[in-house]
């Protein structure tokens, strides 16, 4: 068994990695590992004033600094019942557009593009793409400039506060920004063309659910009091937990999210999928020209979606300035409330960000912060597994590492917000032993023998099941005995282990243990197991179901099981007994 690891994913912000484990011709496991140390930010805000919280939480992430500030302020204002004047709302949107421009241009030209044009970094890329690198730099600088004007610094500026701003930009500063934004539009149009027409490989393609903030007034945008899903569902931001359902996994300091037991994606691609119809102006024309069904299922198109959003931002900035210069600068809105609770949602460049606070006696008594990368972690694993399995099936194992790198990076993960990067490993011969022992010690598993006794080694699963029965194991079933309710009724939180002959291209008698969820991305295994699991195994149980596979020598017609496979059965029984 072999592991492909991307230990330190370069050109991402933070410290994380992906490990894919390969046994023969099957990808048995993919883990998105976050090594970034735990910082316990949610705890250290407790006992602080709402203002201190707003100073501290942007330090979660330097790139999304203003998104964190914005989300925290929205949550605090909800909790403390603070209503801000329109100019404040408008300029918050403005500062956030600056961050979007900065982050998207950094990701597109510096972090993502070098992969597609074959350079190790943007500086090296400058030899061939001198013009693009130069203008991209100016674009990023421009985003930074907006952030600096609005917040005081490019990173961790403190000007946005609960109730408004310490200081407003002058009319001259705003008008300069407006004119500069207009000058960029021709280049941004080329950027959309460049990234929408890139030759994205189709290897990681699979449907998913997308989620993003639902902006008011039928407009495109990056904040809202509701969340919209690509299936049309709307969730109130105050009930964000209905979407995120956070849980902890042992291989990451970044918590995970699933909606109704399934992974979902957030980010630019999610926003374009959910809200693309709302784009206006040139952005609408580009959306109509380039958006197609591949954008709904290929995470690599996140790059194209980010380019689309750059165009949206550059068209929106002049509008915001036109409105803002006509409004007076309001003083910071004071508040008296000392108790309350509230959630704030905004779209950080890489996806939906939630902050939730409870305030009691004027101090933070509880906080819950959910970052976009945490929500994307499950889909990052899933898409890496799909890509790895498809490449393995096509005999292109040497491409797996680079392709997984591409997939992870397309999510623009901001690992510092919790979360260095991908790895391919060959599983050891005995990797199944440890996992099986772990499953046996939890609660007695349910075993299902699979196969047919008419095709020699294909009877291995049935043989193993009957041996287990003979040795007094309960909850042992044969494939043919399964009725729709069997597993649901007997299972009660137990892991389900399917016993079967599995051709994973190794020496006869080799044993492997594959999570059913991973098998779902393998064309052969999925045809065999998914119809059986469908309707019988809940999505939650899917996570706790495994295939204990034995490499057959032959599945020709005949009743005799081969010697290596018989030995494998002995090995398994011995191991289970111990």
């Amino acid at each position: 068994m072999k592991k492909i690891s991307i230990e330190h994913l370069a050109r991402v912000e933070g410290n994380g990695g992906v490990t894919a484990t390969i046994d023969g011709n099957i990808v048995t496991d993919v883990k998105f590992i976050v090594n970034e140390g735990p910082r316990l930010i949610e705890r250290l805000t407790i006992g602080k004033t709402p203002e201190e919280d707003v100073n501290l939480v942007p330090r979660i992430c330097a790139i999304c600094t203003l998104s964190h500030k914005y989300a925290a302020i929205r949550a605090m204002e909800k909790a403390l019942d603070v209503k801000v004047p329109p100019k404040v709302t408008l300029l918050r949107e403005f500062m956030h557009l600056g961050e979007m421009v900065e982050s998207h241009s950094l990701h597109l030209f510096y972090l993502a593009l070098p992969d597609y044009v074959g350079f190790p970094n943007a500086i090296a890329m400058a030899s061939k793409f001198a013009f693009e690198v130069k203008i991209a730099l100016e674009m990023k600088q421009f985003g930074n400039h907006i952030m600096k004007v609005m917040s005081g610094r490019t990173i961790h500026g403190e000007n946005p506060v609960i109730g408004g701003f310490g200081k407003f930009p002058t009319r001259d500063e705003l008008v300069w920004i407006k004119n500069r934004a207009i000058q960029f539009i021709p280049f941004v149009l080329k950027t959309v063309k460049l990234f929408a027409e890139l030759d994205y490989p189709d290897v990681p393609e699979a449907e998913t659910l997308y989620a993003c903030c639902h902006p008011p007034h039928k407009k495109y945008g990056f904040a809202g009091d509701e969340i919209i899903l690509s299936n049309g569902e709307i969730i109130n931001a105050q009930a964000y937990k209905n979407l995120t359902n956070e849980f902890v996994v042992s291989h990451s300091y970044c918590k995970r999210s699933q909606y109704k037991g399934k992974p979902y994606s957030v980010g630019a691609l999610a926003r374009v999928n959910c809200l693309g119809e709302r784009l206006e102006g040139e952005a609408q024309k580009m959306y109509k020209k380039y958006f197609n069904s591949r954008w709904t299922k290929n995470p690599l198109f996140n790059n194209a979606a980010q380019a689309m959003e750059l165009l949206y931002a550059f068209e929106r900035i002049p509008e915001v300035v036109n409105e803002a210069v006509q409004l007076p600068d309001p003083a910071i809105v004071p508040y008296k409330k000392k108790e309350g609770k509230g959630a704030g949602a905004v779209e950080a460049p890489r996806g939906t960000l939630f902050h939730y606070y409870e305030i009691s006696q004027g101090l933070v008594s509880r906080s819950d912060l959910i970052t976009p990368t945490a929500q994307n972690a499950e889909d990052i694993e899933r898409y890496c597994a799909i890509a790895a399995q498809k490449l393995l099936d096509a005999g292109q194992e040497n491409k797996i590492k680079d392709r997984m790198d591409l997939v992870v990076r397309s999510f623009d993960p901001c690992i510092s917000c919790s979360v260095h990067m991908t790895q391919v490993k060959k599983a050891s011969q005995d990797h199944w032993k440890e996992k099986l022992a772990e499953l046996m010690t939890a609660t007695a598993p349910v075993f299902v023998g699979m196969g047919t006794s008419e095709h020699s080694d294909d009877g291995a699963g049935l043989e193993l099941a009957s041996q287990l029965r003979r040795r007094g194991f309960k909850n042992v079933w044969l494939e043919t005995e399964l009725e729709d309710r069997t597993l649901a009724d007997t299972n009660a939180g137990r892991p389900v282990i399917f016993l079967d002959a599995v051709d994973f291209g190794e020496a006869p008698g080799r044993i492997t243990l594959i999570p059913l969820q991973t098998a779902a991305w393998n064309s052969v295994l999925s045809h065999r197991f998914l119809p059986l699991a469908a309707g019988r195994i809940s999505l939650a149980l899917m996570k706790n179901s495994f295939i204990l596979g034995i490499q057959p020598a032959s599945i020709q017609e005949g009743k005799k099981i081969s010697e290596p496979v018989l030995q494998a059965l002995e090995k398994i029984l011995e191991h289970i007994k111990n």
Partner: protein
Amino acid sequence: MQKAKLKIGIYELTGCAGDALLIVDCEDELVNIFKAADIESFLMAKSDNNDGPLDVALVEGSVSTERELKELLDIRKRSKVLVAIGICAGLGGIQANCLQAADWEDHFKKIYGNVEMSITKPLPPKPIDAYVKVDFYLPGCPIGREQFLSTFTRMINGNPPELSRFPVCMECKWNENDCLLNKNVLCLGPLTAAGCGSVCINYHLPCVGCWGPYEEANNTAEYKLLVEKGFSRSHIQNKMANFSGTKIADFFAQLKGEKK
């Protein structure tokens, strides 16, 4: 004969990556930075990174896992000069402000539950000088652009960094701001290392102390002044601790002694 270029590595331990990002944000100078020195390792900006001997290592972030500790020890071994960039590396950062180790463990359980982590073991966050010798410290959350560029230029010419040896209060006077303390606003300008250009006060907002404590600051005098102005002791202490990492612990210990 042309002098050999310095070999420089930029590393990120646990933090917000803001100091590394600030270096990337030196847009106009970035190409020159890459030309003037051999940037051997810089994960945020490039994928062809080497782990060889270095003249200068710049390290951001606090040590928060066993793996990071191992990485840090290795970096120290490979480099002639080690510079802590930002307050996470220098002071432990905002994550080091749970002053008691027991509190940290309790906090960890409250967030992650009782899950046994299969990856690197977490450690209570500490500044890097808790484990290795640090030659120079650049304060800031994040570090400042002028301060970084001046330090970088001085180092490639074989000179030590030259840092501001005064508090934010001094820069604030140069900028002719009205003193917020006179308006009874809790401002940490007198206690905080300078270099930010008094940005918050320029925006009519109080200094939050994010560049970390100025070493010669008169903490006691400011503390007493704030108590006189009517701020609660716990609020003042929280404010002073937020960005001071482990380095404010001595002052609090002294304060506790005085109360008795």
